[in-house]
């Protein structure tokens, strides 16, 4: 019984102190040792400055704060005669590696076919939807791009919404989140959520277990791929982005994402390309390109997709070639590298 066990109390004190001190050491180590603070870590991609750091005269781009950019390094000031293009998108635009990504392929093609000297920044991160892309672009405009290529889709809007709710929760005053805000224990909890909870458990098991306030909000959201629900939200965010980019005087090329249905062999985008083309048809400096149109016209469409939304290297080449033609048209006003490619709705 408990009163009999009170004699063990003195024995508990030292191990308890050791455990607490060990945890305190880990917290200090995490606070000073990690390259990002827990506040940045808990930004869930909504930190404006995360992943960008100016080192001397260079801009270093790294993975940070749930922002999984490829590591890149560019001069802070544009070199004379060089064009700076930034590609903002999700995992499809990010690519399986920096070398195999659409950005690097585009840079090579522009160099080889058009003799253009370009920096093509890959600012794409898996799961990023319109809300987080807007935050990235807001920061990217500080580095004076000549063109923004925006990969627009609705399949990642769900992740954006989920992460936004998490961001709001983690930054609340609520005592429930005090542990979350600790550098070490907060990171352990977040790792479990991201590495175990979201990755190990099948989606339907996870969904069934969601009962907290955040869960309720997410549960109330319609299907992850319900285009009628997500499209208006995505278009509204895109409007803000286009507005900001145009205010900065930078042209924007919106490449509308498409998905591949292996069963039917068709490439679809739920009408997103038409909706975006109509929306920006009269907007100067805004070009719209359809991934669906680009791929649908090709006989080897199944060879262009690794899965339902990610491109193979052949697919990446096709996209890069088409983008290169559009970029060539924009910067060179025509010429050998601007023939064919994506049919753009440009004014």
């Amino acid at each position: 019984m408990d009163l009999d066990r009170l004699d063990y109390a003195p024995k508990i004190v030292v191990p308890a102190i050791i455990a607490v001190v060990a945890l305190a050491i880990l917290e200090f180590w995490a606070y000073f040792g990690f390259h990002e603070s827990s506040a940045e870590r808990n930004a869930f991609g909504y930190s404006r400055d995360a992943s960008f750091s100016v080192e001397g005269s260079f801009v270093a781009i790294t993975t940070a704060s749930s922002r999984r950019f490829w590591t890149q390094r560019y001069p802070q000031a544009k070199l004379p005669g060089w064009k700076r293009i930034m590609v903002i998108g999700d995992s499809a635009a990010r690519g399986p590696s920096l070398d195999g990504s659409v950005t690097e392929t585009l840079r090579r093609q522009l160099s080889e076919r058009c003799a253009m000297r370009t920096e093509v920044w890959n600012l794409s991160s898996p799961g990023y939807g319109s809300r987080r892309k807007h935050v990235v672009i807001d920061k990217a405009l500080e580095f004076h791009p000549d063109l923004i290529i925006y990969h627009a889709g609705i399949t990642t809007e769900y992740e954006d919404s989920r992460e936004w709710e998490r961001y709001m929760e983690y930054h609340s005053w609520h005592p429930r989140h005090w542990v979350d805000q600790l550098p070490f224990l907060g990171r352990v909890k977040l790792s479990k959520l991201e590495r175990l909870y979201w990755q190990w458990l099948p989606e339907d098991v996870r969904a069934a277990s969601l009962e907290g306030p955040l869960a309720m909000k997410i549960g109330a959201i319609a299907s992850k791929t319900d285009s009628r629900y997500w499209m208006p939200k995505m278009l509204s965010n895109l409007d803000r982005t286009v507005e900001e980019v145009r205010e900065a005087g930078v042209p924007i090329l919106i490449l509308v994402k498409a998905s591949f249905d292996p069963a039917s062999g068709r490439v679809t985008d739920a009408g997103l390309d038409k909706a975006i083309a109509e929306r920006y048809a009269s907007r100067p400096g805004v070009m719209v390109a359809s991934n669906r149109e680009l791929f649908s016209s090709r006989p080897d469409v199944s060879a262009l997709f690794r899965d339902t939304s990610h491109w193979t290297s052949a697919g990446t080449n096709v996209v890069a070639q088409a983008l290169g033609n559009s970029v060539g048209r924009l910067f060179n006003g025509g010429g050998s590298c601007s023939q064919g490619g994506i049919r753009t709705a440009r004014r």
Partner: protein
Amino acid sequence: MSFATWYFPFFLVAISTVFWLLPRRRLAFIVLASLVFYSFWDVRFCSLLIGAAASDYLCTRGIEEAPPPPATVLAIGMFPTAWLLVIAQFKEVAGFHVAATALACLAFCLLFIAGSRLKEENRRRFLLYLAVGVNLGILVFFKYANWFSAGLLDMLQRIGISADWVLLDVLLPVGISFHTFQSIAYVVDVFDKRCKAERDFWRVLCMIMFFPQLVAGPIERAAALLPQLRFERQFDWRFVVWGLHLLLLGYFLKVFVADNCAVIADYFFKRIHLGESFGVGWSLAATGAYAAQIYGDFVGYSYIARGSAILLGIELTRNFELPLLARSPGEFWRRWHISLSTWIRDYVFLPLSLSISYHNRSSPSSRPAVNDLAIVSSCLIVTMLLAGLWHGADWHFIAFGGFHGVLQVLWLVVPGAKVLSSSAGFLPRIASRMLTFVLVCIAWILFRSDSLNDAARVLASVAGANGTGADVPSGVVSWLAVHAVPLVLLIALVRNEKEEADVVRRSRATLAIAYFLMIILLASSEAGRAQFIYFQF
């Protein structure tokens, strides 16, 4: 207020700090704290607890000595109505509820006053029946009325009578099964002179609604709890250290083990209820997940209850003694939910079997003895059926109790089972533990399923009726392993002790590592994700 809410630790710290700082009036303070604690669910239902305490107080006084005068009876007996009237000033309370409570209180007072006029032995017996009747009445009405009315409606519809009006929609007050059993035990103990009747009404009220054990036990005996509620202990820093030790264990078991395993178990049983079928792999994983969930949930709750109580210098009963190491179903019940199993042993099984033995004794002069296998077996099954029904108003709970009753009888009548459970040696020990665990898991399937039909489907799935393939995703197995293995390791660490809390008997280094890991694992989980399973009883 649930122990799993973020605000309970703040509540506990505040209450225990003020408690030890108070030079007097500690009893009133704890009663007030308990009322606040319970009011987080529904402040109206405090009237039930007050009513039960009033009935216990008056009846035990009347059983032990001369009953209180009618004015006192009316003052205390009408207290629940007064509570509702006060509450009605702040919160909406239906007039019908107030009127029904007033009528019930008045009826009790009149019955009590009438019973007080009887001769001593008759009075004692009458007041015992009255107090037990009040508590059972509360339990039956609030817990079983919906079930009975649904059954009655079904029966009437089968014979062509439409009578929707019989269908009741009574809210179930949290923890009702626990405090009513505690009340009954107090009255019976006073009647049997195992315990003295308490002369202070507030102390009886405090015993009924002492917040650490109010909603899910342990079902305390008055002889153990009432003297402690004089709050005569002086502050001892060891209360704090031991209390924190128990609280850490409790939260670890609840938040890390139970709530995470619940993700798998809840998904599976909900889908089964919706008609989905699963193969052996999924069914076994879900059954294992539920075993870990219910263990972590209830054992964890009991540690939190004990830890909270010891912070106030109160010692509660140990409710679990490593039940997963039991070598027979009978031993399992001697280790699992001990306060309930000893309650049903003392207040149902022994009186029932002694009563039957008394009537069957060979001669009027011989002493009754519970040694007839047939009597013991039938009483065991009846007792366990009642224990099943105690858990909930549904056939699957009754089947759960009945199954355990049958198992215990089997261990009495099958010689091999008894030998296996008592043989020394490594292999018999492992085999008997595994066999008991499997049987307990089967019973837990009956317990967890939403209906008998669902339980049958789960058992069929486990037996391979929907295919014997490993249909469970590897992520689910990994998830289960991550959250159940620490529990297995903890039990293995204390396998020769009484309970998990005895990990303090290990070396200081082991203890430091255990604390360190428990805090990290606890912090990695989302607190308050799921309610305690036993709160619904």
